């Protein structure tokens, strides 16, 4: 009799999610060859990630930002505004370069959606930055230093009413809405709804509905791409994302300066706030993995990089709740694919404290050979293609680099070759050189 999900061990859950990814249901493969290609690629990743056996060769994948747009001669603005342009460009990119997996085509949110809600947290092509360049983040103190108590008390309320009213210009009226807990009996029931009859609040909800329409259009594009790519032989290397609680607060609520000062001025409240976020961010990842039937959930890490925090600050503030989120995901069979942006050279000893074969780490500026050594037998290591190599190097430089990585990090398996930082415009021939080289040289004999 098949075990119920709740009765399974985390190993069993991981295996169920992997099997569902390697042999997905309902995919109409283009041909027997593409089905074989899909299964080979997914199995190659599974073997590299689980650390149980050697894959047939080193897997390789690319994480582009707007590169597929530039590759087709489009600008970031065009693909964020005209959603019909996304799929052909993204498909062409993957079909031309043939990496072992695809990362979806979820370009940043559609511009119409951002305009309707008047999003303040970012500038985007044509709004604050040129149409030919990527979006950029405008950090700010969207949560004030004296609001920790309110946040800790009810983080979901903060995310539902307070935060949106500060980062979406069209949703300012939400900040004044009373909680519906004011409903009492027959006499009080209409009172809390009074604000909803006023023009500003109605305008805000009208904006939400319109934005919802645009989000749905975007979801159709992204969802159909995710359905079509497996049929063409490409498994997805991630089906969702979650974050470290420190970054949730530092990136989008308090800003870099704010959270750094909080470490000195109100350390206990900062820690409590991160604890309050932990179950929310576990559920975010688990939900996405279960829905997609794939264990791979990305976790981009930002503010714990070398230099951004001292060793003590990393151990006291950044790591504990990050580890809790990771373990919460692992317990449910999810494989967190953790993207350590920046350098993690000073963090390698700390992150070794994880169970074997349950996580993967993608490195950017970290010494990848040191990282592979440190995490050998613990986690799968992925990385890295330096930005200067991709933009100003030659194809031979690129091949030499890939060879070095395979010779040093590929040994013993548990290694994936990928770029460690988003790229927009690079020398395309360098990308091709790397991917092709891995396929001929990266075979495990």
């Amino acid at each position, binding site marked *: 009799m098949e075990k119920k999900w709740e009765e399974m061990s985390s190993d069993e859950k991981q295996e169920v999610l992997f099997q569902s990814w390697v042999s997905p249901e309902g995919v109409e493969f283009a041909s027997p060859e593409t089905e074989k290609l899909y299964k080979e690629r997914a199995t190659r990743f599974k073997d590299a990630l689980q650390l149980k056996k050697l894959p047939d060769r080193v897997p390789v994948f690319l994480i582009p930002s707007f590169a597929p747009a530039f590759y087709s001669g489009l600008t970031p603005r065009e693909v964020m505004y005209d959603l019909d342009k996304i799929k052909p460009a993204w498909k062409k990119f993957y079909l031309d370069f043939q990496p072992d997996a695809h990362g979806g085509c979820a370009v940043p949110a559609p511009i119409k959606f951002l305009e309707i809600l008047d999003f303040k947290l970012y500038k985007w092509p044509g709004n604050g930055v040129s149409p030919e360049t990527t979006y950029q983040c405008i*950090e700010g103190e969207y949560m004030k230093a004296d609001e920790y108590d309110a946040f800790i008390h009810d983080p979901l309320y903060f995310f539902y009413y307070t935060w949106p009213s500060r980062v979406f210009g069209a949703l300012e009226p939400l900040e004044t809405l009373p909680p519906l807990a004011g409903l009492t009996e027959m006499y009080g029931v209409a009172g809390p709804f009074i604000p909803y009859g006023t023009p500003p609040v109605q305008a805000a909800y009208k904006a939400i509905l319109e934005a919802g329409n645009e989000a749905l259009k975007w979801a159709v594009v992204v969802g159909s791409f995710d359905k079509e790519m497996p049929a063409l032989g490409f498994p997805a290397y991630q089906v969702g994302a979650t974050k470290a609680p420190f970054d949730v607060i530092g990136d989008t609520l308090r800003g870099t300066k704010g959270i750094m000062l909080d470490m000195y001025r109100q350390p206990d409240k900062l820690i409590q706030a991160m604890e309050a976020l932990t179950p929310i961010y576990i559920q975010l990842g688990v939900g996405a993995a279960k829905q997609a039937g794939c264990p791979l959930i990305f976790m981009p890490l930002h503010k714990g990089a070398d230099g951004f925090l001292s060793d003590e600050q990393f151990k006291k503030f950044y790591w504990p709740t990050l580890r809790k989120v990771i373990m919460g995901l692992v317990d449910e069979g999810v494989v967190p694919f953790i993207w350590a942006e920046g350098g993690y050279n000073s963090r390698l000893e700390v992150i070794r404290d994880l169970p074997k074969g349950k996580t993967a780490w993608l490195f950017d500026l970290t010494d990848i050979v040191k990282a592979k050594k440190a995490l050998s037998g613990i986690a799968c290591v992925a990385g890295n293609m330096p930005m200067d190599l991709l933009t100003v190097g030659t194809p031979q430089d690129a091949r030499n680099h890939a060879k070095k990585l395979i010779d040093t990090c590929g040994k013993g398996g548990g290694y994936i070759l990928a770029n460690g930082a988003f790229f927009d415009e690079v020398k395309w021939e360098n990308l091709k050189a790397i991917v092709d080289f891995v396929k001929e040289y990266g075979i495990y004999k």
Partner: protein
Amino acid sequence: MAKDLVITLADLKEKEALGIAQDRLNKGDDPIKILDDARQAMEIVGKRFTSGDYFIPDLIYSGEILKEITDMVKPKIAKAGEVKRLGKVVFGTVAGDIHDIGKDIVIFMLDVNGFEVYDLGVDVPAQKFVEKIKETEAPIVGLSGFLSLAFDSMKQTIEAIKAAGMRDKVKVMIGGGQITEEIKKYTGADAYGKDAMAGVSLAKKWVGAG
């Protein structure tokens, strides 16, 4: 008493440092002397950053405490004293890039170390750099950029300086997350700083002060 402010600020003891500064003001101590002690403390902070004892949060926190002390002290300064400056620097984040946190930290450390910095802000077109260099006759230029598109912007900015006939009058340093020796060569810059204190060292070397 003077030593206490230097030590407490260098050790990032915010309440104590502010308390000492306030006490000294109340006692009628020379406000310029208080600021000098604060700057001495910042030199220690800079040294600790270079030696790997302090990190970015410590720089930011020290900057906050310094700002609070400066706000407290400035109204008491009778006349603007001439602060000796090591040299002028024109600084900005290059065209197309709006990242400013790194830039602000470097500018802050340059300022605290005696340089007069002209902060052009973010997304600065090449011509604006050229105009400011002409106007101030600054011998040092700092270009900050975090995105990979910044590589070309930096190259174009340096080319614009060359086209204006000023390339041999300035030394250019670049910096930002993805900058390497290869990128420095590509852009035509004189040097790159891998962090704020490296930038300060470069600037001091170029004015013959370090």
